């Protein structure tokens, strides 16, 4: 027997109690249920807000970041007064203000192979609101190994995807994506940008699916992938089937315990400095400034997209967007010294790899990108 609702709860949830598919019994179920939200950023924000408002009795939040002002364009869980605070703390106070009757458990740590099973085991449903491939594969494998549903969403610019990966009933994330793309092929939102409201659309779909799973109502996205494009305002669905060769949920699984997901995705570990191509290939902003002042002839190649130049640019730079670099190698001279740069050093590190593999040797990566130049050399430039 689930506990009865108090008078206050009956009033708070009255709009749910009026829906026959939810009703008093459904609301009791929600209050007795639990969801782990991994990531409290763009997707995690609407997910956690709506689950708290709906009266999901116990919500876990995993994040290790602090709130930054560049988060606020889309991460509606946090506010300006929260900048500089831990995201999980900022999130908890907002959720408890929205609904003080629920329990909010916080995990101020990265979700890793070492802690994931322990954190996840006591939750009914996991929601994937992470922003990187290693944590997405980890979340999937945790769900498969623990037999829990993984409510998936991901976003880029104007495009969103959502599904429910639940190996007990259908395919898992690895059935669709057996392996990650090569590092750097698919830019992150920090590099490529995202329309602020996009995670709102996808996150509320994830929250909807989580509530349906907890209530046991409707048809979920198990076996279907939703593809949303905000620019064209299209919603499309494709069918997903279980992959008989799936390494984690197939009949002969190779993955029977959690693995090293950074290695699996070919990305450097968490202690790797983002925006660095490795010591011997990096040049710092002050170093580059000094060499230019000394009159050295260095070609500055900007590998960003054309529209980013109106935000900030370096004197004398030449633009060759990363996507065009492979087909414009003939414009470069391997005898001449070059420095590649982008916003923060991620794309230019990738560009550097491409040039080095094409035989270029006199090439460097501006460590930390034009944002580092703005911080360390020319404070008149904005940081974005």
């Amino acid at each position, binding site marked *: 027997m689930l506990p009865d609702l108090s008078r206050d709860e009956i009033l708070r949830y009255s709009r749910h109690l009026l829906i026959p598919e939810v009703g008093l019994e459904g609301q009791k179920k929600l209050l007795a249920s639990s969801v782990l939200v991994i990531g409290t950023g763009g997707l995690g924000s609407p997910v956690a807000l709506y689950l708290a408002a709906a009266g999901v009795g116990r919500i876990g939040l995993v994040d290790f970041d602090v709130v930054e002002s560049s988060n606020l364009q889309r991460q509606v869980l946090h506010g300006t007064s929260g900048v500089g605070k831990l995201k999980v703390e900022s999130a908890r106070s907002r959720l408890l203000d929205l609904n003080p009757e629920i329990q909010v458990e916080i995990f101020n740590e990265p979700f890793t192979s070492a802690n994931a099973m322990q954190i996840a085991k006591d939750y009914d449903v996991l929601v994937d609101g992470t922003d990187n491939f290693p944590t*997405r594969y980890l979340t999937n494998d945790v769900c498969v190994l623990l037999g829990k549903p993984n409510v998936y969403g991901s976003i880029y*610019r104007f495009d969103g995807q959502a599904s429910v990966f639940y190996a007990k009933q259908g395919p898992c994330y690895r059935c*669709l994506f057996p392996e990650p793309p090569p590092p750097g*092929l698919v830019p992150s939102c920090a590099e490529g940008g995202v329309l602020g409201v996009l995670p709102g659309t996808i996150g509320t779909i994830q929250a909807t699916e989580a509530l349906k799973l907890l209530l046991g109502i409707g048809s979920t996205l198990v076996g279907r992938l939703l593809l949303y494009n905000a620019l064209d305002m299209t919603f499309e669905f494709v069918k997903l089937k279980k992959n008989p060769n799936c390494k984690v949920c197939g009949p002969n699984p190779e993955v029977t315990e959690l693995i090293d997901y950074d290695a699996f995705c070919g990305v450097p570990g968490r202690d790797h400095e983002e925006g660095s191509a490795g010591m011997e290939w990096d040049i710092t902003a002050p170093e580059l400034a000094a060499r230019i002042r000394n009159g050295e002839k260095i070609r500055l190649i900007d590998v960003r997209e054309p529209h980013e130049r109106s935000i900030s640019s370096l004197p004398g730079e030449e633009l060759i967007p990363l996507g065009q670099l492979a087909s414009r190698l003939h414009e470069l001279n391997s005898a001449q010294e070059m420095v590649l740069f982008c916003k923060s050093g991620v794309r230019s590190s990738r560009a550097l790899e491409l040039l080095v593999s094409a035989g270029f040797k006199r090439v460097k990566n501006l460590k930390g990108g034009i944002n580092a130049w703005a911080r360390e050399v020319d404070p008149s430039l904005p940081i974005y």
Partner: protein
Amino acid sequence: MPTIRIPTPLRSYVDGQSEVALQGSTVADAMESLMLQFPALRSQLTNSQGELRPFVNLFLRENNIRDMQGLATPLEENDQLLLIPSVAGG
């Protein structure tokens, strides 16, 4: 002729186009014609043996070509292939 829809993250490799016309009567031929038109895509979509990498998910009429006849799946005149990328943003 058949077409392929290019997802936003890969559009910088195809001059920003959202849809590209393809030649060929099978998925394999059509993908080859895509990579001939845009050579920079080849290293992204194929491995060192020239095979499409497993993260490249192609869908035809709502179905994954893996669940049809794979790369040998025949294409009709007005078919549209969907290339569904792994996207990690959140």
